[in-house]
């Protein structure tokens, strides 16, 4: 039993880090722009499909395909931002409808371009066992877990130690005041979309490297990212990661100890319990409300 629990917790941490990578982009955009990007999961999936295309036509593995996928996803994210920007009134509600529509367009576009068939990497290394004796994991999972860790540190440093990062936080705190201080809110918001797109690209690479992909996957990815974001409480990177890891571990332990069919139920129970105790999410533990 101890072995099962130990290995399940480890699996849960790997999956949770992956959820965190997806949610990070969505949370960054929401904190800065108040836009709930319901097409974020589709952007992750788009990156995965571009990785597939790069593999089949150029022979690039999921890791090497990231720059190419990044270019495509950044363009798609900027287009999303521009469309959302057309609607300046009731932005939060309007963004829901616009990005939901963009998500549908992206999903159907992926069906048209890559068909409804599932795709998965032909690069065997990514699904081979990682050299971790007691901890079962695939090379791809461990690699992208490590990349996620590095990205989190880099992102934290960027948000706290660079001018652009601080500008982003300033816009997140108060858009009008940030403008009075010489920060261009529109440009900063665009920057948030670009950074989120790059995070989505890495998540898409991880997705393609370790799982089979198909066009309808985007919606569930968005849902998961949304749950993580709300559970964490808006605007807190460490709590966002904590929420993602918590969901990953809860899912894994539920599958191992109760029933695999109850994974989503267990996640929602934890979600509701946390929000009942901490209405602002996990970040309520520290009382923080800014991106840091």
């Amino acid at each position, binding site marked *: 039993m101890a072995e*099962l629990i130990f290995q399940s917790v480890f699996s849960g941490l790997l999956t949770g880090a992956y959820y965190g990578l997806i949610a990070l982009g969505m949370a960054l955009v929401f904190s800065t722009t108040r836009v709930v990007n319901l097409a974020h999961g589709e952007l992750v999936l788009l990156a995965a499909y571009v990785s597939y295309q790069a593999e089949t036509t150029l022979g690039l593995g999921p890791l090497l395909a990231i720059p190419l996928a990044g270019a495509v996803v950044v363009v798609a994210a900027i287009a999303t931002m521009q469309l959302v920007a057309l609607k300046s009134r009731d932005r939060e509600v309007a963004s829901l409808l616009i990005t939901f529509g963009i998500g549908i367009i992206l999903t159907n576009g992926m069906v048209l371009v890559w068909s*409804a*068939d*599932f795709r998965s990497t032909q690069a065997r290394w990514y699904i081979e066992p990682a050299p971790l004796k007691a901890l*079962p994991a695939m090379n791809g999972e461990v690699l992208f877990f490590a990349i996620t860790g590095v990205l989190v540190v880099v992102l934290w440093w960027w948000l706290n130690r660079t001018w652009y990062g601080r500008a982003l936080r300033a816009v997140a705190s108060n858009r009008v005041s940030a403008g009075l201080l010489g920060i261009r809110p529109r440009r900063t918001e665009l920057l948030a979309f670009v950074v989120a797109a790059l995070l989505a690209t890495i998540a898409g690479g991880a997705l393609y490297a370790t799982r089979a992909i198909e066009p309808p996957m985007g919606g569930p990815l968005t849902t998961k990212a949304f749950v993580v974001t709300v559970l964490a409480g808006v605007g807190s990177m460490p709590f966002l990661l904590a929420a993602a890891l918590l969901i990953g571990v809860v*899912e894994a332990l539920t*599958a*191992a100890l109760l029933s695999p069919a109850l994974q989503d139920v267990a996640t929602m129970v934890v979600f509701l319990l946390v929000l009942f105790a901490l209405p602002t999410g996990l970040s309520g533990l520290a009382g923080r409300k800014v991106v840091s």
Partner: protein
Amino acid sequence: MTTRFIAAITVSILGLLPVAPARAAELKVGVHDAITGSMGQSGVAMDQGLRVAVEMFNRKHREHRAVLISINDESDPAKAVAAVEKLVGQGIQLVGGGFGSNIIGPASEAAHKAGVPYLTGGSLGAGLSRRGYKDFFRVISDDAYSRAIAGVLGDIGVKSVSILHVNNDPCTVVADGVERLLSARQVKVTKHAFESKTPDFKPIVNRVKLQDRPEAIVLLAYEPDYIGIMSAVRLLKPQVKAVVAAWSVATAKMAKEKPDLFAGVMGTTGFPFPVQFSDAEATEAASYYRQAFNKEPDHTVFVGYMLGTVMFDVLRRAADAGKLNDRAYILEQVRKTRLATMYGQVQFNAAGDNDAWSLMVGQHQNGAIPIVWPAKGATGKLKLPAVPY
């Protein structure tokens, strides 16, 4: 006088003409297919199979012309209902198609209300047949999958089995069937239901490995799930004699793209890979499919083909009897169907299910999938342990 003469000549000339064939009837079948949406992959394959059926019917029956009117239901039950209503409104006398019980249920109900027979090859949900509709028919049968899986495991002689299945109606029905058949052979069965597209299967497989410790694992799911589960199985290496899956594993796509992941794994199928057909019709249909769609036909394609063949055959009989617009006659002809298609026998029981249909079991072996069960139709020898490690 002149007029009478001309009339007489005309009648004589007409009398000398050879008897013209009966006017070619247009046999219109209406289907809703999940071309996009969550069931898109299977829906496309089903639709392609139906199109092959149209082509093959038109080649074989020059006296009629088969026409397929297909509407994309986007894997959405409401759109499937709207599609059926639209087809019925266009005067189509035989409708069907669909993929997934949650879509086929309401769609067939709409057809039932309109009094139009509905045929499908996309549902294993036994609950649909239990509704008591006399105009609902399934060309496939969940029992065929259960019998094949339980049959091969019984012959291997395993004493315990873990079944990992998606928690939807079709997979649960087949899981229950396998459990019933294996329990009758005193085999211990443990079932684990899960949500399709679970992101990480390692905890589930680990549970099977460390707690169930079965001699065989049965998988009832869909392609992305199979890849996830087999990745976990290869990683954790549970000590089992065999892994057997239902649909979508013993396929050309898996043999070509994932030969390592599925090496040794068995799956239900109707033919080996590379495809070897004994009859000319099957060879011709497969050849046409490759030419039209540039890939190898798979199980779902052939189920679509079987469905289309049955539907057009029913309308052909109705047309020959001059009752193409007689719904009662068409329904009677569906019930009377006794058709040996290249993908199996079609003969509906009182509930509208095709009990006569059966499946075989193939095993991934060095990039090929020979039939290894039953012995009668085997094209290769079963290799144990049937696992990729």
